[in-house]
């Protein structure tokens, strides 16, 4: 895989130097280090754009087979904990999206066989909005979302 070769190259000192040089002159975009890091999805400015870029068409809403846990109120938008547990069989991927962030897609998690379809991570939120968990299982997409209220903390000064 190209991905692995490049990674191997990066580990050697020369590789890093070369890579940095290419980045600097714009011949090689850093994002290209990952074969399937979907640049257009990660740069999407709204939910529809992100779903389109990910090739997802109207995912089915399901709050039973996707348990999304987020705080109702976040004291600070810099850290918003997100936990997703899915009980679909054959979960291949779970994505987390933040509806009103400048970059909507926060992360994709890819689950090989034997890895439990669950994860906990932390996202940034610029304002009160929905957090969406998008699950790909057996080739189909499902979603669940919950609102997080982001507040102004402390004395505000």
């Amino acid at each position: 895989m190209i991905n692995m070769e490049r990674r191997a190259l990066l580990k050697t000192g020369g590789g890093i130097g070369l890579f940095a040089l290419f980045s600097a002159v714009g011949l090689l975009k850093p994002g290209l280090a990952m074969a399937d890091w979907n640049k257009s999805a990660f740069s999407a400015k709204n939910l529809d754009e992100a779903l389109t870029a990910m090739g997802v068409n109207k995912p089915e809403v399901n709050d039973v087979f996707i348990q999304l846990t987020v705080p109702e109120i976040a004291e600070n938008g810099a850290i918003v904990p997100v936990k997703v547990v899915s009980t679909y069989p054959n979960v291949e991927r779970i994505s987390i999206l933040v509806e009103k962030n400048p970059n909507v897609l926060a992360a994709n998690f890819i689950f090989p066989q034997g890895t439990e379809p669950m994860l906990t991570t932390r996202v940034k939120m610029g304002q009160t909005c929905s957090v969406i968990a998008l699950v790909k299982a057996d080739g189909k997409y499902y979603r669940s979302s919950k609102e997080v209220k982001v507040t102004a903390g402390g004395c505000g000064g």
Partner: protein
Amino acid sequence: MGNPMKIRAAVKEGVTEVKILMQHEMETGLRKDADGTLVPAWFITEVKAEHQGRTVMEAQFGQSISKNPYLLFRFKGGAEGEKIKISWVDTKGDTREDEVAIVV
């Protein structure tokens, strides 16, 4: 090379739980510093977890992941003393790789 991660991998009833805390600024490219200058985007784009050479989790990050990213996941298998290797790559092409032994 990036700064070290904190990793904890513990096995219980045949399932290994891995918790990772990475040290990274995760700059969105939209934030201004104290002087009002825009801080360029700089964030981890990919994280990979391997158990005895087998990939057990792959994650792709965007700008919306918090500074000092946190990740918890679980996989079937793993035994005390076996190694978990975590590696990441960021938008500057910088990398980091750390390894821990699974505990009970």
